[in-house]
């Protein structure tokens, strides 16, 4: 119902695309009919009405998913057509970007797709396949050049090299700090679990770090890292400086520690007492018990921590650009500086897609690692 209203509003009331004479002047909103060649606009509206009808009627989840997929495909195609239609020939300054109507439709159908996928309850592998299919579809449209007329891609076209460089940095920052936090946090969590007196102290310290705003943390790190760069031989050579990637990495790492350590502790504490007791009683050494019983049983909770960390790091890594750490944040802050929203989007959209994909993949991993409670019985 809500989704159908969103579709109606997005298709009929809100503007579908914005036309601007150049990238920084205020734009001119165009409705669906005005933004598309006469025939195409009617076709899109017709499609949206059919979709809304399917949503309103009590239809099976699979049909709803198909509807969402077709509708998403349709608005993706038509926004590309819009760009070609609205841009005057030979004009390289004009910018056509998706307007609120497009985003509302995108949101509505994404919601519909998510809802019907939840109802279908696909297995983890299938969910990852769906994700790959969606990303593949988007990639195909990108490669086909259909969207080349859109403002975001015009921003991209001028910065293709830098874009991939920053993308690499972004992923390296997020994954690298995740990796480091797991390498440090997992043993620390195990230690906290085994050595009771440590637990409160370590967790409180990490909690405290978590409450420091990210920009402040970057600032705090400038002094010690700067000092290290100057006084520790070789530190500067491997890129440790008061600003740049090093403090960004350290900050992300520190933020990541709490979820990893806390979830390790909680996961290990949740291992059934009897299982632990029996493991000891039948002659497992502490190490065998840790790797054979405790860690496998705590794994879903630990993975949940890693999922939180990864999604959080992908988002936070954006801020790294502020201190010269690179990443998609570079475009966001450049865009804000130039009041060029398209440039902001060039940084923001990949970040969101990356975080979203990471969340889905890790959710699937968590489910595959959850011991048998859902598996086995239902199949």
């Amino acid at each position, binding site marked *: 119902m809500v989704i159908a209203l969103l579709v109606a509003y997005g298709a009929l009331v809100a503007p579908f695309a914005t036309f601007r004479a150049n990238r920084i002047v205020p734009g001119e909103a165009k409705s669906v009919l005005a933004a598309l060649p006469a025939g195409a606009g009617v076709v899109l509206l017709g499609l949206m009405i059919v979709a809304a009808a399917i949503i309103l009627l009590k239809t099976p989840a699979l049909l709803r998913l198909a509807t969402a997929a077709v509708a998403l495909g349709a608005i993706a195609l038509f926004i590309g057509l819009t760009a070609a239609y609205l841009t005057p020939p030979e004009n390289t300054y004009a910018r056509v970007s998706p307007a609120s109507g497009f985003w509302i439709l995108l949101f509505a159908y994404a919601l519909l797709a998510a809802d019907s996928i939840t109802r279908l309850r696909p297995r983890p592998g299938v969910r990852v396949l769906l994700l790959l299919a969606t990303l593949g579809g988007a990639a195909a449209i990108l490669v086909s050049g259909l969207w080349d007329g859109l403002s975001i891609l015009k921003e991209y076209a001028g910065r293709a090299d830098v874009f991939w460089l920053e993308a690499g940095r972004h992923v390296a920052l997020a994954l690298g700090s995740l990796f480091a936090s797991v390498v440090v946090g997992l043993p620390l969590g195990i230690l906290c679990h085994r050595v009771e007196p440590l637990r409160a102290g370590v967790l409180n310290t990490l909690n405290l770090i978590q409450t420091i705003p990210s920009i402040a943390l970057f600032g705090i790190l400038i002094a010690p890292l700067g000092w290290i760069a100057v006084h520790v031989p070789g530190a500067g050579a491997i890129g440790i400086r008061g600003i740049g990637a090093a403090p960004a990495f350290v900050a992300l790492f520190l933020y990541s520690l709490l979820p990893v350590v806390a979830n390790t502790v909680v996961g290990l504490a949740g291992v059934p007492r009897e299982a632990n007791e029996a493991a000891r009683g039948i002659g497992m050494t502490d190490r065998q018990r840790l790797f054979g019983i405790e860690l496998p049983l705590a794994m879903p909770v630990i993975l949940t921590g890693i999922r939180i960390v990864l999604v959080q790091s992908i988002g936070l890594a954006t801020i790294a650009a502020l201190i010269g750490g690179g990443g998609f944040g570079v475009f966001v802050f450049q865009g804000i500086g130039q009041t060029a929203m398209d440039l902001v989007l060039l940084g923001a959209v990949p970040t969101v897609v990356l975080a979203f994909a990471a969340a889905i993949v890790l959710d699937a991993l968590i489910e595959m690692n959850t011991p*048998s409670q859902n598996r086995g019985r239902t199949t």
Partner: protein
Amino acid sequence: MIEIDGITKRYDGTAVVDNVTMTIEPRTVTVIVGTSGSGKTTLLRMINRLVEPSAGAIRLDGEDNRSMPGFELRRRIGYAIQGHGLFPHRTVAQNIATVPVLLDWDKARIDAKVAELLALFQLDPAIFAARFPHELSGGQQQRVGVARALAAEPKVLLMDEPFGALDPIIRAKAQADLLDIQKLLKTTIVLVTHDMDEAFHLADKIAVMDKGELVQYGTPAELVTNPATEFVQTLIGASERPFRLLSIETAGQAVEPGTADGKPVGAATSQRDVLSELLWTGRDALPVAAADGTLIGKVTLEGLARRAARPQ
């Protein structure tokens, strides 16, 4: 043989188990009873060194149990606990194979052992081997727990309230099965419980613990006829005494020559159950049948009454 020699465990200066000395004969079932906090579980756990004693020694077949690392000792001693303690992420077969895997048995031997134990515990390997513990009933989980404890063919099996989580009907069956398996495998069983009925049903000898001390160690009959302390008497229950005596022996041991009317009772039935049957059906005597069905005599109300009376 398990020799417990002056064993003491103190926590913060308080003795939880205080200078206990007792000898457990091989191939018997010894039940340690006591109220909660009596130290009975601590005593059991010092045998496989889950708890290290503060003083004293425990010898298994003459060998001090501290002569090897604790985990190696525990692999040689079966251990089953209340609530089974199965590993939820491993299948029934993997659970049972735990200790053989730790001992590096070859795969064929492990598979054979798992199949043998599943069959012994009346669990069809084809159905149960690949199941996860949560897919089993409480009784099945308990059987798998005991099967896991017996997988490496230990001479000694320690059980800590193994039937505590079972409902009464399944518990009676599990107790009967345990006795059968003990007769078959000749394992020395030390079992902790607070259930006196269970103790009298299972035990060759009963050890009564009270506030960390071993107050009496003897056969069930000795406990009933000659309780060492007030506490033992209370534990047994004054009004229960004649019935406790009858519950120790079987109908086969009370057979008198002659015949009687009615449906025969099995020779392995406890005398207590026979008495109950006699009273309920209003008869004076019932025929007794051996395991193969042949009649071997009768049990009379009068005979049972004599047996239930205080020894002179």
